[in-house]
């Protein structure tokens, strides 16, 4: 074994010994997280993104013209990584695209005990079939209920948007962004997208509510939304808070090593006390 390899291995062992959640904000990297800005004031509900998504990932292509799917609100499903929903709002009909939000610190990746759910170093959260054991804890832990499971398969997969990770690696944009005819979707780094979103609000203060959904929700998400009406009218949950989901379990996980090493010592101490008590009683018995 080469010295360098050995050092790397030893370093890895050191890291595993001090295992703790690594927060995205602590990782120093020259890469920036990417995401997509969704401007719901521009979406016309044509569902070209649904078609492009299905084509890019070998999923059944929806019959956009005839299926009448906009009639009711749909969640994403194991055959649809993205869906467009129509909402009746105080400013009329609004269309909203729904898919994985690609959280900066995702609950699903913190939940996954095999690292099958994985936050890549440029932002997309992807699922890796060779690692997943199908426990569905990611589904429990996702604040947006995005991961979907193939219940009717003997070899089930978790299905969710991966921000077209395959295409990003080839330098392309996500399929949905490329297909959008009205520039409702814009791909870029989160820093750029935030700047653009703010500029749009600043230039047209009467057209937008002054909030960017995803700026700080659950610690910030890769996908950002602009809207003309308050977001609760568009099916967004407003009660998710700004705490990154992995932080909800850090307190517990930090306590683990303390208990794991402290409690045995305490129990051995108790046992010694119990023994010395016994000796004291047996010694004193003959005198009584």
């Amino acid at each position, binding site marked *: 074994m080469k010295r360098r390899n050995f050092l790397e291995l030893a370093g890895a062992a050191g890291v595993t010994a001090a295992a703790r959640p690594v927060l995205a904000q602590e990782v120093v990297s020259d890469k920036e997280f990417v995401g997509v800005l969704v401007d719901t004031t521009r979406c016309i509900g044509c569902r070209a993104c649904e078609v492009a998504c299905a084509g890019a990932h070998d999923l059944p292509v929806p019959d956009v013209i005839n299926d009448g799917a906009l009639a009711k609100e749909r969640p994403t499903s194991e055959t649809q990584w993205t869906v467009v929903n129509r909402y009746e709002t105080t400013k009329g009909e609004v269309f909203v695209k729904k898919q994985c939000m690609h959280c900066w610190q995702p609950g699903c990746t913190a939940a*996954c005990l095999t690292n099958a759910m994985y936050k890549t170093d440029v932002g997309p959260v992807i699922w890796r079939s060779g690692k997943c054991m199908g426990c569905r804890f990611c589904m429990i832990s996702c*604040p947006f209920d995005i991961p979907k499971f193939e219940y009717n398969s003997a070899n089930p997969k978790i299905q969710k948007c991966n921000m077209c990770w395959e295409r990003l690696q080839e330098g392309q944009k996500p399929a949905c962004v490329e297909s959008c005819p009205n520039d409702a979707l814009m791909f870029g780094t989160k820093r750029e997208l935030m700047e653009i979103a703010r500029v749009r609000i600043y230039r047209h203060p009467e057209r937008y509510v002054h909030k960017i959904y995803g700026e700080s929700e659950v610690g910030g998400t890769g996908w950002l939304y602009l809207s003309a009406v308050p977001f609760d009218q568009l099916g967004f949950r407003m009660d998710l808070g700004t705490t990154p989901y*992995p932080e909800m379990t850090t307190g517990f996980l930090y306590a683990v090593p303390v208990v794991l090493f402290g409690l045995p010592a305490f129990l051995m101490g108790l046992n010694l006390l119990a023994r010395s008590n016994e000796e004291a009683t047996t010694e004193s018995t003959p005198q009584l």
Partner: protein
Amino acid sequence: MPEKPQLSREAIRFVRFIVSEMKPKPPYFTAFNLITVPIVLLGMGILVLRFAKGLGAVTNLSQDFPWGFWIGFDVITGVALAGGAYCITFIVYVMRVEKYHSIVNVTVLNGFLAYVFYAGALTLDLGRPWNIINPIIGNSFGFNSVLFLVAWHFMLYMAAEFLEFSPVIADWLGWRRVKKWLSAITLGAVIFGITLSTLHQSGLGALFLMAKPKIHPLWYSEFIPILFFTSSIFAGLCMVIVEGTLTHRVLKDHIDPDHHASHDEIIIGLAKFASIAVFVYYFFKLLTFLHGKQWTMLGDFWGFWYALEVGGLVLIPGAMLAFGVRHRNVEIIRMGSVLAILGVILNRLNLSVIAFKWYAPVHYYPSWQEIVVTLMVISVEIWVFRWVVSRMPVMRKSRFQ
């Protein structure tokens, strides 16, 4: 060498002994067998379908309810009810209270089998069980996952409990020196086991910390891990009381007469510990309730359901246990134990299934197949328990004493 033929003779004797012990003992046509054999056969058929066609073929699980009865009842409730083993080993081996020594073997056996079967039921629920080796062999460690911790602690705890029980197996096989050696490491296994139990009992609760927006606020709290740990103490102790009562009625022939006579004393002692744990748990529950300023939530069905769980199935059984201890009334203690167990079952099911996504328009309920498989798991566990108790010196005196 002279040892060789001796060794082979010994091996043949050993195999013959195992084969003769494996045979079921009459009577075969007991009411229990007549009920459980069809359940187990049906359950096995359901499992074939489940692995051939996927979870959707036999369960009511959905995209909204990824965890159902198999996780909520078998694993999360089953493990809480198996908490008796770490409590009793703490009392007997760490604190060296001799009074409870006679029940330690049977409690550890119950705990071990409960983990093998109920925590083992987790594998039935896994969509891709062949990848279960990933978090074990180290090619994919999700260190920041609570489930990773729980899974490892399950495995290590099963090993610790097996070690705690192994002197009885050595005794059964007639291995005097092995038994002596295994007995010497019991304290180490016990301390390791209690530590692991503390962490995974609370860890099961920590699984739900990231489900914050999906659990009714009356049940969600940052203190779920502590609530799970405290309730596992009395859940386990009350199970020991109820199981003890049942085994003393059903398996009387396998129990040492001295032990049988002292059983009421043991029950009263355990009830004392259990009632303290119930009131500590109740106090924690009350604290999270007051802290969350949740008075206004008591008005609707969920408020009533919460009050039923905390008032009816925590406070009342706690009072019954305390009353029973004070007046040395074993019957009241037994009833209180049953109610306290029901309270823990309801609490675990509320958190994992019933009050989970209480807002969903279509709510999950278990399919009959899910219930049959759960009954199958319980039945096979009781078969194995009965087999062990009627052959090994679990509740009888050791032949080496």
